[in-house]
């Protein structure tokens, strides 16, 4: 079996070496990948075709309008918030000089490592009626004084903006760094002032990156379940679980998930529209970044204070809270109870995140390169559809993958039983293979948008030149594109890694028996309101998420900017 497939691979690789076959092999590979990623989504859509109409009618009559409204409010709020915060901060640190700029340049990415449910519960514990902040306010100013309830739409928007803005920041910053400088300088030479050059040249050029970041944010917002529940702000994805867990109607729940997909499709269309036909290609690489304008006096202080405030609220505050709780826990019985399992949890978490990152990026490269070589309408559509998993709540993807895999497993066992009279057991369901597959389905968009964005920046004249010199498409990818895309690939891997580390519902549903991760540990304790116990694993998720952030930063800031 193995030798056959090896021979096949070798023959195929050999054929792929020749130019004509190369194109086709890439296209076939891309199609197969898109198909694999789409399969569980199709299974889900298939389930959604026969929901209990009564449950849906009831929902439309009662809660659904509110949930739809909340979903829109949340998307608008978080979208605006992350765009302003992400773009603004990125421009501040790439094009200005102020006290602490070097530090904030990388530190402002840190909130990305904090899962939004962790930020949500630390905000809740700090700022709700029983929390220390309001206790102090009441002690100082009397019992009638208090903040508006944190359990509200505003609370949800605030928390999600703070944890999601780094997606926009990261991509905007890279765009400003990498390919804004030459045009910016040019615009300045032609007499535009800095603000005008930013609005009319830099921002439009960075638009593909900004839109990519923003669409990730919006998809995350659509599928967020934990935070909205903490803050009593039921959205459509919360409704899915209401129907599934509450009404115990899986198919009607999936039906709502498809409705959610419709939202995502609209968002994707808008994204296409916004990106438009614009293809901004940097033909020459400026060695220098944008000339930084010094901010002096109060303006410099203001810039520092603002950056510090964002960093404080999105990172330092929750982390300090976690450190205090972890300390309490460790000082108590924590070490003896959890010490032995702790290392295993960390190892498991890293293993899953690493596998998912590698496979998601590999798949994204194949897909994006397939599209580049064979840019047919259908190919583009397939690639787009393959990223839709990001707009479906993890649990629904989980069900789709579970049904797909178990069908494969049962078919396999029927087959082995018929031929060899024995069963192979479950090879896919509840294995790391199945779990990784589900992660790739879910997080393809994260890897793809980053890979696609950096591939797009490479001028097609490079391809042409290399091909004229006789290189096969595979060789062009290996020798030309991949080295140029290094930062983009790392970004993609980092984003997937961090996302999987925070991921809960898919892990919960599809992991091997008893395979525990940090996110599961956090979930178990948080769902029992044992926040102190959840602090240590949550802190570990944050810290472990910092490592790839640092790696990425080291590799992306090789190019020194002039200051």
């Amino acid at each position, binding site marked *: 079996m193995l030798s056959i497939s090896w021979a096949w691979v070798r023959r195929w690789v050999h054929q792929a070496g020749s130019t004509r076959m190369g194109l086709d092999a890439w296209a076939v590979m891309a199609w197969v990948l898109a198909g694999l990623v789409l399969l569980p989504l199709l299974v889900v859509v298939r389930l959604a075709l026969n929901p209990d109409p009564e449950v849906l009618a009831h929902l439309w009559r009662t809660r659904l309008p509110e949930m739809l409204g909340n979903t829109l409010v949340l998307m608008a709020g978080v979208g605006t918030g992350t765009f302003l915060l992400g773009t603004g901060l990125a421009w501040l640190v790439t094009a200005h000089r102020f006290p602490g700029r070097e530090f904030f340049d990388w530190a402002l990415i840190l909130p990305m490592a904090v899962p939004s449910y962790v930020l949500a519960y630390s905000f809740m514990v700090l700022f709700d009626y029983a929390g220390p902040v309001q206790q102090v306010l009441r002690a100082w100013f009397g019992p009638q004084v208090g903040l508006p309830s944190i359990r509200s739409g505003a609370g949800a928007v605030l928390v999600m903006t703070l944890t999601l803005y780094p997606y926009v920041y990261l991509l905007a910053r890279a765009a400003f760094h990498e390919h804004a400088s030459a045009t910016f300088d040019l615009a300045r030479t032609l007499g535009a002032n800095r603000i005008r050059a930013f609005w009319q040249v830099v921002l439009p050029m960075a638009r593909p990156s900004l839109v990519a970041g923003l669409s990730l944010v919006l998809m995350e917002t659509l599928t967020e379940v934990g935070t909205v529940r903490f803050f009593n702000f039921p959205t459509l994805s919360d409704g899915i679980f*209401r129907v599934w867990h*509450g009404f*115990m109607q899986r198919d009607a729940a999936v039906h709502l998930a498809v409705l959610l997909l419709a939202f995502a499709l609209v968002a994707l269309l808008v994204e296409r529209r916004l990106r438009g036909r614009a293809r901004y290609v940097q033909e020459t690489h400026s060695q220098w970044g944008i000339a930084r304008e010094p901010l002096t006096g109060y303006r410099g202080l203001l810039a520092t204070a603002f950056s510090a405030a964002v960093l404080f609220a999105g990172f330092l505050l929750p982390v300090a809270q976690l450190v205090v709780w972890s300390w309490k826990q460790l000082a108590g019985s924590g070490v003896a109870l959890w010490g032995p399992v702790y290392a295993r949890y960390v190892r498991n978490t890293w293993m899953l995140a690493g596998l998912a990152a590698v496979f998601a990026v590999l798949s994204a490269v194949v897909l994006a390169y397939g599209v580049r070589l064979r840019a047919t309408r259908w190919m583009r559509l397939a690639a787009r559809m393959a990223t839709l998993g990001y707009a479906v709540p993890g649990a629904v993807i989980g069900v789709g993958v579970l049904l797909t895999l178990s069908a494969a497993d049962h078919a396999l*066992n029927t087959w082995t039983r018929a031929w060899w009279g024995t069963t192979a057991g479950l090879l896919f369901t509840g294995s790391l293979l199945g779990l990784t597959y589900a992660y790739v389905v879910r997080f393809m968009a994260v890897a793809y948008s980053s890979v696609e964005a950096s591939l797009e920046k490479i001028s097609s004249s490079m391809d042409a030149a290399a091909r004229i010199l006789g290189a096969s498409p*595979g060789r062009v990818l290996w020798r030309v594109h991949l080295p140029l895309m290094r930062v983009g690939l790392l970004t993609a891997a980092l984003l997937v890694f961090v996302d999987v580390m925070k991921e809960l519902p898919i892990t919960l549903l599809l992991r*091997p028996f008893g395979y525990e991760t940090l996110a599961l540990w956090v979930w178990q304790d948080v769902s029992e309101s044992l926040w102190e116990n959840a602090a240590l694993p949550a802190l570990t998720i944050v810290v472990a998420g910092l490592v790839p952030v640092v790696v990425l930063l080291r590799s992306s800031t090789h190019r020194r900017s002039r200051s």
Partner: protein
Amino acid sequence: MALRRFALLVAASLVVLVVACGQTSPVPGTPRDFEETATLPRQMAKEEPVVYVYSSRHYGQVEAAFAEFTKETGIEVRFSFGKDAELRERLKAEGEFTPADVLFTVDAGNLWLAAEEGLLQPVESDVLAENIPEQWRDPENRWFTFSLRVRTIAYHPDRVVPSELSTYEALADPKWEGRLCLRPSTKTYTQALVANLIHYYGYEKAREIVAGWARNAAEFIDSDARILKTIAAGGCDVGIVNHYYLARLVREDPHFPVKLFWANQEGEGLDGRGVHANVSGAGVTRHARHVNNAVRLLEWLASEKGMKRFADGNYEFPVNPNLKPHEIVAPWGAFKIDPIPVYLYGQLQAEAIRLMDEAGYK
């Protein structure tokens, strides 16, 4: 050449993945084992000393009771935790190949549903029948419960006199306006309580009561522990919570100011029907491979020693009335429990949510 290298990279990654799978997925029993268990009669099948549990009940403390079981019987208990709906979904998908021998949950509704969906098998056992009162097990012996979680009224003694309190229903009275903290309708604890009202009062009357609660609500808080702390801080005066959350807070701080009131103890008819209780329980899965071990685990949990250990782990009340509860909750006094068959919570759950949606209960 380059593509070959790329393909090698993919292949290498796949190999790593497969190796990783082989190392870390502890799917119990080799295919051979499975064949043997499938062909031999159950009692004769030799079982490894291990039992696999799918559990939606996830406390660190639980492990103390199970460690005790392992020490006594030599049977290792392995857990995989999850949410109820997802665990059922996985059991269904895995079918005859499921690794799980036991399904453990914390809500009667979920046990009922698992039994309805054919995921559990009946267990005939004198030990279980003798130690577990009829109300607390499935009429067809597909699931059994071991401890009770009482959902009742919590109040701040500085602002509420116990004599003002009586029943769950009475909390709909306008005098509690803006003084009540409630758990949202998404939680099964809330759903079971409302299912209880529907059972006794019928849909219309139950909706009026629930709408009254919703009108009186100061805030909906998705955490019983946080509800108790909000009452302590003065954010509201009364709330409805599971008793063991208070026990945990009292363990941390013996002077924690909030008290519990056992609801529906006195009065005629429904007013005195008893306090609302839900359960922690388990059943043996239909395709369990370690049936004997699974039954032994259930029997051990039903035994006096096992049940006491298990219930104490989370300050719950043992279903066996001869056993004393944990010393933290014992001083809270004896109480009468609503005699409703708990599987009704499962049957009425969807209706309960529908009712809350209509009544404006968040």
